[in-house]
């Protein structure tokens, strides 16, 4: 065996030459030169809607030379929620993750501030509504970017024919396609009378009172319409007030005209109720209408999405935004922000909205007038008022303005719907309020 000895002098000369060559060589941007990025997005239930997001990400990845892995994670069975909890615990996971409603606040300590990016986006796309700010800006810092995908207003979706037949209401005249609403008469009292008339006519309103999101969002908007707050912004329990009593009285009257089983409804129940042809009104984004278009076209032709009734303290509609956040343990935060900026451009948002058939709703005020909402049919203009184009309603979330950690529990445990059901079932008002106060007191722990 021949052994070739390398002298110290020769070794130093060779390494110096190699180092010089590396330093002097021009930077060639190869494939994936800017590293890797993994994103976990909400798996859309509109078929094909993920494709728009995927294409946008691929377009950005090719431009920026980033190797991107995309996971679309379903919210069915709380899979997305569990993934978020597991990643937060393990301090490892996706660089960008979709988070709904209260999650940016829940994981505030583990998210990267997005103030710089949000400032640019607000400048380009207009301001965001108060609910997005309440949920995404924690202690003065933006911790997540409002996502187009999955964000929605859960306003009324009514049957044009049934409201006309049973209650004498021309909902299309109140909310004309292509024009501002003429809905001054659309009050909580009119709503109650319409609910009674439709109930008598055999086509009740389908408003759930379970503890899932659709049910809680609806009662939350009604509570806001009456000015009924359970916990104020300072964190004081203020359950025992006249506005809460008024809201509960109203719901007691309303529940008499709803199907008897509404306390057991989940987020699918109202959709089924409308699509089956039984219901004359539900509170939902246009997914129920989209399903009807496929499964019961004669129902879809009569659906009209519009605004909430106005209450003593204003006209509130539930807005449920999704956010995109980046963990502080993410290894490629600059690439994550760059991708989020790309996905939040007006053109990107429009592609996503189109792919979802108008279901997704950008949170920025300049992005609420895309053609898809005006053109959606049948009937033409059915979704025109869905994105609240005239800021006719105040977009809200149940349990606001309570501090996030309290509001999240009020929301997730369905305290407001349970209060309404208890009162409706005959529990005295003060006992219901005591129960709610006691439950909320339990949410105060740190």
């Amino acid at each position, binding site marked *: 065996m021949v052994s070739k000895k390398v002298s110290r002098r020769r070794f130093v000369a060779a390494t110096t030459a190699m180092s010089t060559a590396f330093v002097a060589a021009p930077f060639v941007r190869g494939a994936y030169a800017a590293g890797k990025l993994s994103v976990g997005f909400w798996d859309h239930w509109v078929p094909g809607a993920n494709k728009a997001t995927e294409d946008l990400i691929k377009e950005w990845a090719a431009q920026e030379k980033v190797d991107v892995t995309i996971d679309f994670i379903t919210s069915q069975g709380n899979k997305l929620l569990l993934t978020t909890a597991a990643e937060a615990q393990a301090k490892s996971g996706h660089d960008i993750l979709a988070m709904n409603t209260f999650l940016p606040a829940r994981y505030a300590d583990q998210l990267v501030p997005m103030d710089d990016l949000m400032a640019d986006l607000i400048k380009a796309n207009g301001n965001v509504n108060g609910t997005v700010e309440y949920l995404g800006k924690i202690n003065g810092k933006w911790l997540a970017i409002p996502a187009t995908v999955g964000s929605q207003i859960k306003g009324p979706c009514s049957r044009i024919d049934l409201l006309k037949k049973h209650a004498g209401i021309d909902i299309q005249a109140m909310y004309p396609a292509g024009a501002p609403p003429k809905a001054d008469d659309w009050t909580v009292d009119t709503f109650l009378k319409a609910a009674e008339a439709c109930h008598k006519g055999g086509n009740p309103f389908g408003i759930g009172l379970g503890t899932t999101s659709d049910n809680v969002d609806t009662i939350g908007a009604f509570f806001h319409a009456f000015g009924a707050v359970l916990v104020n912004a300072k964190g004081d329990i203020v359950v025992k007030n006249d506005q809460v009593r008024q809201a509960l009285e109203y719901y007691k009257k309303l529940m008499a005209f709803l*199907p008897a089983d509404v306390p*057991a409804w989940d987020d699918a129940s109202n959709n089924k109720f409308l699509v089956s042809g039984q219901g004359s009104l539900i509170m939902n984004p246009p997914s129920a209408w989209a399903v009807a278009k496929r499964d019961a076209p004669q129902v879809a032709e009569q659906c009209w999405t519009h605004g909430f009734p106005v209450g003593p303290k204003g006209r509130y509609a539930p807005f449920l935004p999704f956010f995109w956040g980046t963990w502080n343990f993410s290894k490629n935060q600059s690439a994550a922000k760059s991708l989020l900026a790309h996905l939040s451009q007006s053109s990107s948002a429009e592609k996503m909205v189109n792919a979802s058939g108008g279901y997704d709703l950008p949170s920025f005020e300049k992005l609420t007038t895309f053609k898809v909402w005006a053109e959606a049919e049948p009937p033409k203009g059915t979704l025109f008022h869905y994105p609240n184009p005239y800021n006719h309603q105040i977009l809200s979330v149940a349990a606001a303005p309570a501090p996030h950690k309290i509001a999240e529990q009020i929301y997730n445990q369905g305290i407001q719907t349970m209060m309404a*059901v*208890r009162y409706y079932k005959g529990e005295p008002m003060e006992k219901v309020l005591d129960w709610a106060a006691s439950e909320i007191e339990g949410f105060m722990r740190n």
Partner: protein
Amino acid sequence: MADIAARNTAILEGNRRGGLHRLMQRKSTIAFLMALPLIVLLGVLVAYPAGYAVWLSMLNKSMTKFVGFGNFEFLFKRATFWDVFFQSCLFAISAVIFKAIIGFVVAHFVHNIPTKGQRKWRGMLLVPWVIPPAMSTLAWLWLFDPSYSAINWVLMHFGIDRIPWTGEANWARFAVILVNIWVGAPFFMIMYLAALKSVPEQLYEAASIDGATWWQRIWYVTLPMMRNIIAITALFSLIVTFANFDIVRILTAGGPLNATHLFATWAFKVGIESGDIPLGAAVSLFMVPILAVAAAFILRDITKRGSEV
């Protein structure tokens, strides 16, 4: 001198090797080594998560401070916790009693079927237990659906009013217990059937000669011979039923008005859905002492009878 030292080292080495050889030949060592993969698996999948759950249950809500038993003390003061405690006990005890009764009766029927056709019946009766509960509960959900219940549809054809299966607290409790019985009764049936087959025929013959009635035969022969299997089956089922999650989660999600929450479903609601992981862990750990007490009683009884025999 150096030679002696080297020789001593060699002897020691030989003894050590011999000792290791003997150790490896011991039955207990082999048994331990063979069980080691399972022990490691249990350690990773059971002991570590359990230990971690205990640790989590002793942290504050934001998981930044050790609070000892603070979460447990807090739970004791919550009305909802006591509702869940009551419901868990009601659910587990009533479901186990009915599963045991149905299992016992059906096992007797199957036992009396001629051997030729018995396998088919055994197979068919095991179907509810074999199907994954999440799947079969979905089918039950359609039967109990608040608006489109198939059972209500049938009832309405007989002029009976709709029943709010999942919309009213007591009906909802009934529904979740019923589904649990449906899923779990075949397990009791198969265990009891195995026990019945092991009762010596001579005992029944002797009882018949003594003029025992069918009830006396069950009371004085069958039941005493099956006592241990009944106790073990009941204990096993009590643990599984108490910790049930899927049936309630799918059928009622704990509603209406929290009336069907069990420890597991409420722990999920509090811990994962509402973001209070330490409190959720504390709720789920409440099952441990309750089940430990039940297990201690039942197992003590079995040991006592074992030593009497």
